[in-house]
């Protein structure tokens, strides 16, 4: 009898060991958001001073920068996906939410793509969020409702050499001149590429703020500086310029 119990215990121990040999663990991932104007790092201590020059040649400052990141998704070559719960309103002005760790874990292993959404996709944009409402982040129903994707504000020197305000706000594009309103999706799915996760990982995501004004549309702040939310074409241009704004700077594991 003792012998049988001994064999059972040894078998049990070896079974556990075999599990570990699979080398698949559930791990947390953290996403840090850093900001640049081309090669120059930007933090809120750089705000409120006219010190940047955009692609159109206007000197400008940043006074406010907030943006929404959602649906961080890990995709396997098999088609299997792991979507992290939650979303993150990055607030560079106040230096808050510059780092996001979801409560959802992902299995270690190789992923063909890690993707996040700049803004909300249409389903997420249709829901109600107390924290975002409290942050005055919602979009008026007359513009289709939902939420801002980004608020980038500051001053620029206009073509009369006057310091003038700009409010570069990104939302889902809506054409209010048509009945019913016509919409175009302007959330951006940012693909960070192939990633191998071996243990808890920290992603450093870089936003190049200068890109919002650069390519493919050279942004003229003299023409487009405010009231951009109801401007369908401006929202589409923001979407186009946003395609190369984000990049993966590093992964630390």
């Amino acid at each position, binding site marked *: 009898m003792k012998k049988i119990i001994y064999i059972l215990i040894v078998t049990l121990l070896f079974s556990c060991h075999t599990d570990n040999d699979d080398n698949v663990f559930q791990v947390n991932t953290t996403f840090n958001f850093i900001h640049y104007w081309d090669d120059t790092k930007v933090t809120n201590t750089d705000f409120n001073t006219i010190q940047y020059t955009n692609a159109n040649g206007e000197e400008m400052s940043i006074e406010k920068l907030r943006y929404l990141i959602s649906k961080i998704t890990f995709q396997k070559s098999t088609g299997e996906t792991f979507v992290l719960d939650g979303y993150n309103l990055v607030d560079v002005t106040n230096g808050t939410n510059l780092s996001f760790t979801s409560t959802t874990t992902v299995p270690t292993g190789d992923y063909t793509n890690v993707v996040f959404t700049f803004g909300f996709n249409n389903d997420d944009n249709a829901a109600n969020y107390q924290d975002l*409402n*409290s942050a005055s982040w919602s979009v*008026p*129903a*007359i513009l289709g409702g939902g939420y801002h994707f980004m608020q980038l504000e500051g001053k620029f020197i206009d073509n009369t050499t006057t310091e003038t*305000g700009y409010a570069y706000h990104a939302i889902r594009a809506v054409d209010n001149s048509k009945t019913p309103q016509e919409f175009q999706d302007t959330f951006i799915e940012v693909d960070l590429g192939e990633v191998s996760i071996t243990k808890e990982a920290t992603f450093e995501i870089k936003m190049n703020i200068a890109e919002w004004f650069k390519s493919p549309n050279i942004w003229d702040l003299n023409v487009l500086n405010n*009231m951009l939310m109801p401007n369908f074409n401006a929202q589409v241009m923001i979407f186009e310029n946003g395609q190369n704004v984000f990049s993966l700077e590093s992964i630390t594991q």
Partner: protein
Amino acid sequence: MKKWLFHISSLFIFICLSCSNESTNEYVPTPSPLQIPQFFQDNILNPIIPNSNPQTIEGITLGKKLFFDPILSGDNTQACADCHAPEHAFSDTDRFSDGIDGIVGNRNSMPLFNLAWNYDEKFFWDGKSFSLEHQAFVPVTSPIEMKSTWQEVAQKLQQHSEYPNLFNQAFGTSTIDSTLVTKAIAQFERTLISSNSKFDKHLLSGATLTPEERNGFNVFMDETKGDCFHCHGSDKNPLWTDNIFHNNGLNAIITDLGLGAVTGDPADNGKFKSPSLRNLAFTAPYMHDGRFATLDEVINHYSEGLKNSTTIDPLMKKVAQGGVQLSAQDKADLKAFLLSLSDYEFINNPNFKN
């Protein structure tokens, strides 16, 4: 063996008696959680209640009595309610309120409601106080307001026929100090919830707005017209303020630094807290310095009266033209909408009156 038994029994009896003493001495006032309106609960984050100052029936009762009692002032002539009167949504009608010596300050008395939803907990027009308790602490000793000392106040309250007992009921001690006074006042102030305006009823139960009020709401929410929603909330944010500090183009030359004087950052010069747009029917005059006697003057300011300065908010657009250039009809409609945010049940609530 008998000796051991005696020692163990003694220890057991001692422990039991100790426990029994603790439970009978611990006084707990009656909890009185805030009655959060359902559509606040549905749309915005929960209010801020400090763990060190939970709402209780006895604390709120005491806070209300203190709020209306001139005993807090140096010469027993001025109560909090003198500058924060219920009929004016806990503000007053003066441009600048005067203190017990008749000296006026340089800021308009702020109305008091929905204060527990000030998530950053920065109070006053310039954000100089962190927490409602600290806000209540300041006017008592201000030389141009109640001009007293906390030592004097505590002494007067301690010698009062009712207060020591009321403090004992609220906080389990009859030893009165500034901390307990301000805690009680803050508890009362947190109960001042305004959520029953005509527009609230429209959102909740479909109460009918006039065509003017409806158009005024659209002007408010239209980025090409009023564009008020970026700083003053929306139908999704029933506070009707972002509780953030902005330079809204009142002055070309900034003399009152506002938030800038508090933070020391020149980029904050001329910034003042966005006030809630609730209860405007009762809170004239307007702005941090009460410069506008009427809502028409306020709307005209944003329409054609903006003045440029280095810290003016980027959302103050068309500054070169003086503002957003609203039509006369849009101005009138915007005013009608703004007045629909006034809550007559709030100013007539007997729980908030002396």
